[in-house]
């Protein structure tokens, strides 16, 4: 399956784009998404090792399974207010 990963703020700047299409095996987890991001061209070392991730607009743990069509987002340290 292919999962679209949303990037924001400093992470979007670091990778030079706001979305990444990531091919993943069925049953892949949020942790697999994070490792997958580290392997895309030009991304090595540009994101923290363990960023926060949201699935379908809720914070997710790294063992949560990702399904095709899920809205996955990597969340930089928040700074509202």
């Amino acid at each position, binding site marked *: 399956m292919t999962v679209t990963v949303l990037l*924001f703020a*400093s992470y979007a700047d670091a990778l030079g784009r706001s979305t990444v299409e990531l091919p993943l095996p069925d049953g892949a987890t949020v942790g697999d998404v994070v490792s997958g991001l580290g392997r895309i061209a030009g991304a090595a070392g540009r994101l923290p090792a*363990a960023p926060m991730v949201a699935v379908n607009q809720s914070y997710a743990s790294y063992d949560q399974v990702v399904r095709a069509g899920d809205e996955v987002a990597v969340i930089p340290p928040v*700074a509202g207010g």
Partner: protein
Amino acid sequence: MRVALVRRPIDAAALLAEVAGDECGATTLFVGTVRDVNDGRGVTGIDYTAYDAMALREMEAIANEASERYGTPHVVIEHRLGTLAVREASVVVAVSHARRAPALDASRYVIEELKRRVPIWKREHYLDGTREWVDPTGRGTAEAARTSGVAALSAPTPDPRPAVGVSEESRL
């Protein structure tokens, strides 16, 4: 209750009027504003950006939690996005309650939770013309994070809540 992301100046007086209630003896208004210095560097403005749909969901959850925890339906939160100048309001929280203590506590709860978990980011503009994303975790900006391999997984796990649509403004 109402939460909103807005791309125009926030009318704090309108929020005060919105939370008014005959049974309320106390109203609090928290106004977060852009200040001219951060970490010793002169700041001339801030760009605010958000993951809009998720930010609204988190803001709604926070408003609901404050309402239940402190016992008042009169909670309104507006956060502004876009480029703001020094002194402009980035966030306003209005709460009213029969009594002052829960009104003050609810206001504090809302702003602290907002800063902790709502996916909004700010990029400061400095006097020297440079701009940087602010990282309140103190690990530095993306440049520092990308070389240090920081571990930052501390995702809060909010209570289940009703799904809400993607909208600029949502009335609860």
